[in-house]
């Protein structure tokens, strides 16, 4: 970890490549960045570390011209600059590589790289390809300039994106979670290239929440916590524990009422489920846990660690290996729900409710009104060939009344409601089915504090009714105060299941970012190399 070459840099009295001073950015009520400072020098790699929603990407988007800061100043090479568009950013020699690639699928690498450029002279793809080869050779990329994007692996696409900004002469590179989509081997290659670029004097900012990457790659770390600077440290002088502590921040008390579970019964037994995506990457690995009635099981983890696939597997939307056993309280039977469709699951008499994270995609139909959305769960009822609209209508009105949904009427398309009200409609509908298992993925994402508490209250109420609640959350404070037990998952594996009454934020934060075996090895190899 302590490479002597790394520690020399910061003492130099040179002008920083980029300096941010007191940057603040608000989105409506939400403060995404609050008085953030940051400095990077040429020939340095800076990591920006923070949890989901801590404002890392927002901050970088302000440097790359996508957002404009409400307050604060940006200096490039000591000069104050105003960056209002990606073009301005390029003029300042800033290039950002986004998490989602912006590439045209049927174009070659070269065509994508020169897209939008107005170079002098005749348009020649051959000459451009030559320059792409030069850049590749200089920094150690492996790229065929004439390969089509749709034939490329994710890592090759990322290479195209990086070369794209280098081709435009960027001196300051910002990479937004570049390793999220890469295999360990590809990550190592990327890091090697980034070190080459650092050594040739580029300033590099990398956004990440993987601690071992921060420690093995960067020279300096700036930690953001809830939109604020939590500190800047030299990588060589820090360790995982200190960074985690800075990242999760101090504990906040929320005063959510938490009752003791009343005679919990094992309701849902998940045994050894695994699944892979189409590319063959493992998304879930041997996940086993039990959800009990009258209990809230919190699920904590970095976004994209497999939470979505896990819930979809239980809901019957995702094919997995393993077993998902459901203990039916009425018949006392045990059924395997694996690979059954949602309709089959319902026909088994399983009352399963699912509040997906994608409210207006998977949860509700935006263009339909509240009554129609409520009816999506009950349209099979009734014998007549016409739809039974009375019951759903009164249910919709009940949801509006009980959950205080702010809407002109039950006939308003849900798309026109605010996020909090959309979520109330969705949760209200799912709860109305009086479920025995209720799964909620990020149910308070984007909601204000009052709406959030309404949702917490509803989940607690379900728990008291004896429902087994599975709650996927991102705010550790909430998870700690709402759940009875917390299962922490990291890269598709269970990192541990802890008692929420005794666990601490730091403990969970460390488990979330804990390296799995594979990653420890490559992390170690990176340090050695």
């Amino acid at each position: 970890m302590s490479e002597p070459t790394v520690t020399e840099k910061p003492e130099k009295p040179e002008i920083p490549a980029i300096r941010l001073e007191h940057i603040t950015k608000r989105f409506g009520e939400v403060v995404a960045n609050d008085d953030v400072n940051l400095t990077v020098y040429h020939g340095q790699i800076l990591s920006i570390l923070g949890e989901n929603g801590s404002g890392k990407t927002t901050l970088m988007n302000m440097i790359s011209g996508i957002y404009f800061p409400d307050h604060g100043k940006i200096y490039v090479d000591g000069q104050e600059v105003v960056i209002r568009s990606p073009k301005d950013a390029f003029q300042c020699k800033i290039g950002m590589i986004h998490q989602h690639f912006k590439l045209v699928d049927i174009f070659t690498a070269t065509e994508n790289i020169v897209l939008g450029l107005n170079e002098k002279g005749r348009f020649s793809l051959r000459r451009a390809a030559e320059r792409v080869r030069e850049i590749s050779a200089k920094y150690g990329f492996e790229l065929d300039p004439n390969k089509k994007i749709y034939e490329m692996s994710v890592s090759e696409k990322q290479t195209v994106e990086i070369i794209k900004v280098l081709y435009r002469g960027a001196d300051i590179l910002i990479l937004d979670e570049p390793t999220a989509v890469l295999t360990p081997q590809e990550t190592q290659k990327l890091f090697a290239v980034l070190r080459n670029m650092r050594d040739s004097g580029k300033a590099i900012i990398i956004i990440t929440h993987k601690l071992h990457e921060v420690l093995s790659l960067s020279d300096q770390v700036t930690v953001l916590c809830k939109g604020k600077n939590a500190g800047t440290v030299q990588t060589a002088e820090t360790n995982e524990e200190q960074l985690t502590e800075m990242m999760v921040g101090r504990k906040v008390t929320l005063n959510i009422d938490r009752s003791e579970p009343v005679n919990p019964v094992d309701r849902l037994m998940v045994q050894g489920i695994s699944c892979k995506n189409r590319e063959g990457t493992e998304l879930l690995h041997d996940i086993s846990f039990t959800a009990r009635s009258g209990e809230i099981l919190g699920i904590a983890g970095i976004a994209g660690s497999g939470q979505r696939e896990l819930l979809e597997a239980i809901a019957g939307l995702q094919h997995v290996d393993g077993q998902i056993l459901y203990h039916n309280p009425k018949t006392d039977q045990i059924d395997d729900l694996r690979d059954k469709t949602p309709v089959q699951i319902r026909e088994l008499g399983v009352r399963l409710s699912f509040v997906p994270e994608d409210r207006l995609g998977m949860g509700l139909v935006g263009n339909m009104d509240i009554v129609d959305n409520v009816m999506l769960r009950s349209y099979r009822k009734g014998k007549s060939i016409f739809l039974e609209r009375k019951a759903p209508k009164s249910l919709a009105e009940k949801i509006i009344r009980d959950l205080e949904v702010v809407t002109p009427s039950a006939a308003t398309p849900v798309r026109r409601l605010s996020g909090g009200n959309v979520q109330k409609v969705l949760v209200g509908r799912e709860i109305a089915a009086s479920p025995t298992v209720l799964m909620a993925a990020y149910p308070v994402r984007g909601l204000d504090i009052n709406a959030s508490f309404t949702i917490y209250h509803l989940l607690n109420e379900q728990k008291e009714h004896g429902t087994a609640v599975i709650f996927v959350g991102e705010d550790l404070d909430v998870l700690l105060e709402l759940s009875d037990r917390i299962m922490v998952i990291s890269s598709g594996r269970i990192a541990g299941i802890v008692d929420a009454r005794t666990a601490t934020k730091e403990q969970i934060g460390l488990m979330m970012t804990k390296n799995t075996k594979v990653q420890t090895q490559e992390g170690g190899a990176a340090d050695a190399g």
Partner: protein
Amino acid sequence: MMLVSFLQRAIMQGIPLLYGSTGEIVTEKSGNLNLGIPGIMYVGGIGGVIGAFLYEQHTDSLNPVLAVLIPLFCSMLGSFLMGLIYSFLTVTLRANQNVTGLALTTFGVGIGNFFGGSLAKLAGSDIPSINLTKTSKYFRTSFSGAKDLGWFGQIFLSHSFLAYAAILIAIITSFVLSHTRVGLQLRAVGENPATADAAGIRVGRYKYFATCIGSVIAGLGGLYYVMDYANGVWSNDGFGDRGWLAIALVIFAVWRPNISIFGSILFGGLYIVHMYIQNLDVSGQELFKMLPYVVTILFLIVISMRRKKEAQPPAHLGLPYFREER
């Protein structure tokens, strides 16, 4: 001898389709699915007719250059305006492209028939058709030595300037699309406008230009039909379903105007092959007229099964582009 005249007629049938499909390809490359092409070709035709009619009424001795330029200009102006309406509705107001296009087709056919009818009235004719043989003669001027060159001359050299222009335009369009910066950027807009936008390309502007230029090219197909193919006789609904054939040809040519050149002759041939088969009754003729569409459907099945990325329509075809706001 029959084969020679068949091929010559096939080319003449194909030229309006070639104009239409080249125009539609340019438009579709920007991501705009312009189903208004049949209407636009109609407007292109009637525009030329109006220009020629007014000029013929104005003077008795036609100046050959003006007799060509006036109808040409009127035709281009008409189809340009149609393209402008389409762009304004779909790009600026983000209206649904299919609905807008179909509305324009209905509108264009209506305009054509309306003005066709009124001009016929002005000319004092009983039937809704206008005779512009004088103007047509200038349009149909062709290479005089063609007759001496036998079958070769008849097939390849007997055509008018608009026919060669169609082929030239198709070749130029092909080159621009695949070998120039503008073409690359236009294709990027149709494939992935968000990426194009991020690369600093003015997406809306490209869509406007491509649609209007495409409409003008397509409109020339209508002009060719009236002035060359129909010998300057405009009759209402005479243009038939050639506009739809042009759109089918776009698929057949896998969005490449150079393939469209051969495709148009093939389609033209299939369209008239029934006239060269003896003893066909009316129902048989209609079955034969179906051939181009059958070929297109079969072709669609084949290219969909092959799943070759380059043979697919532009990825963002038919979809409006919103810059993400937040």
